[in-house]
């Protein structure tokens, strides 16, 4: 059994920021990530971020990842990082099992921050398991991290910000986006992203869905259908589009499994993307000493993940008896940033969801 003071699972924007602030407060940190690269999903974001300077707006996502990793460099003595290490089990007696380097390791932690992120949702349609049907994030990883195009001609399903941005990135990488398909009557993401696609001539098909992928061992096309007001396919409106990749961008769901294994209360909160741990105002779950941040506690943007990560790191440190010298100032600043990020009409859904996932008094 390996003894660790603070373990952070996930080295994306939330985990990296949590590690930095906890280390500043004097914690000894073990940061664990299953990927060979640090930065979580920031490493595949080639677009510049919105938000304010504090969340490194106007910077491309992969550059933000580099900056967050660089921020940990001064804490090389107190922040240990395991990469290519997957946490496969979490036990209520504060134990994690980690699969790494071909062996299982057991860790006992005093405090834990779950910054594990979210997983891509799928969509039910015939042949959706054919090779060539990818989650939008998978396409981003393949082309923006590894420089490999998933296909020459792509059909995108879903017009939230991820769907819109990935369409644009596919075009930048040299692919043709044959159509952007959206079941709702209008696009889901920001108009500024959709306008770019319109200017590039991408057909945007609203009130349309995919009913079938074509092909035997790989995707050769899709069959689309129009939808009526009740979201049912309209007979006779089926059309076929040839393509060699289908990209599904229908949202993300928080990865709740480790919180669940630890016995945390995890209600379903649709506004936050699915099952999320109940959190108190300091981001602690209903299990004492276990905190959560980033998409794992509700799907938002990387900017709020960074701030939420700082908050979780700050309070995990305090839980461990390491009060950050600027605790109150940072705490106040983080909360102000979060309210600002979640302000306005686009934040309404998140605000409603967070109310449902908040516990006022620590349950256990």
């Amino acid at each position, binding site marked *: 059994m390996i003894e660790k003071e603070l373990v952070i699972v996930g080295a994306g924007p939330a985990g990296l920021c949590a590690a930095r602030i906890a280390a500043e407060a004097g914690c000894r940190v073990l940061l664990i990530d*299953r*990927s*060979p690269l640090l930065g979580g*999903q920031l490493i595949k974001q*080639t677009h510049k971020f919105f938000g304010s300077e504090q969340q490194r707006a106007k910077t*491309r996502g992969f550059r933000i990842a580099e900056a967050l990793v660089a921020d940990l460099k001064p804490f090389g003595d107190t922040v240990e990082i395991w990469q*290519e290490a*997957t946490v496969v089990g979490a036990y209520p007696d504060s134990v994690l099992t980690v699969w790494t380097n071909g062996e299982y390791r057991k860790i006992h932690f005093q405090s834990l921050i779950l910054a594990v992120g979210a*997983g*891509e949702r*799928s969509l039910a349609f015939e042949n959706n*398991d*054919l*090779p*060539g*049907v*990818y*989650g939008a*994030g*998978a*396409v981003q*990883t*393949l*082309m*923006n*991290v*590894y*420089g*490999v*195009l*998933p296909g*020459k001609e792509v059909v995108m399903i879903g017009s939230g910000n991820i769907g819109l941005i990935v369409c644009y990135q596919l075009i*930048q*990488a*040299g692919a043709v986006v044959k159509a952007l398909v959206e079941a709702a009557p209008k696009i889901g993401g920001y108009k500024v992203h959709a306008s770019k696609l319109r200017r590039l001539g991408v057909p945007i098909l609203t009130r349309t869905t995919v009913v079938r992928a074509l092909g035997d*061992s*790989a995707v050769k096309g899709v069959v689309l259908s129009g939808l009526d007001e009740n979201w049912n396919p309209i007979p006779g409106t089926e059309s076929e589009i040839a393509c060699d990749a289908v990209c599904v961008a229908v949202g993300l769901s928080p*990865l709740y499994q480790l919180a669940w294994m630890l016995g945390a209360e995890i209600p379903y909160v649709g506004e936050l993307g699915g099952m999320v741990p109940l959190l108190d105002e300091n981001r602690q779950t209903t299990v004492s000493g276990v905190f959560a941040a980033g998409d794992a506690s509700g799907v938002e943007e990387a900017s709020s993940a960074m701030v939420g990560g700082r908050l979780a790191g700050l309070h995990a440190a305090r839980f461990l008896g390491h009060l950050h010298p600027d605790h109150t100032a940072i705490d106040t600043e983080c909360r102000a940033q979060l309210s600002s990020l979640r302000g306005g009409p686009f934040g309404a859904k998140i605000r409603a969801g967070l109310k449902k996932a908040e516990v006022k008094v620590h349950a256990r």
Partner: protein
Amino acid sequence: MRIEQHPILDFPERKPIAFTFEGGPMLGREGDTIAAALHANGISALSESSELHRPRGFYCAIGNCSSCHMVVDGIPNVKTCITPLREGMAVTRQAGKGAYR
């Protein structure tokens, strides 16, 4: 296929890494995951479903969906989307749940 030109990203030429897929020689590049190297070689079917033996490719590319499990150097259920490619690896498609020999 590899992206040759990109307005934002640089993909500099990297050291070739030799491995085998289904027994035949194949080249990837340093820094590739196994799945990325296979995609660069036009291989998107990585495994086979257990009941109906349908071909499967990866869906998430971040180690989550289990759709990229392959047999690597005799070991089944290797998440090839997050496992770096290494020189001389023997990679084969996995049928179903995979079996330890």
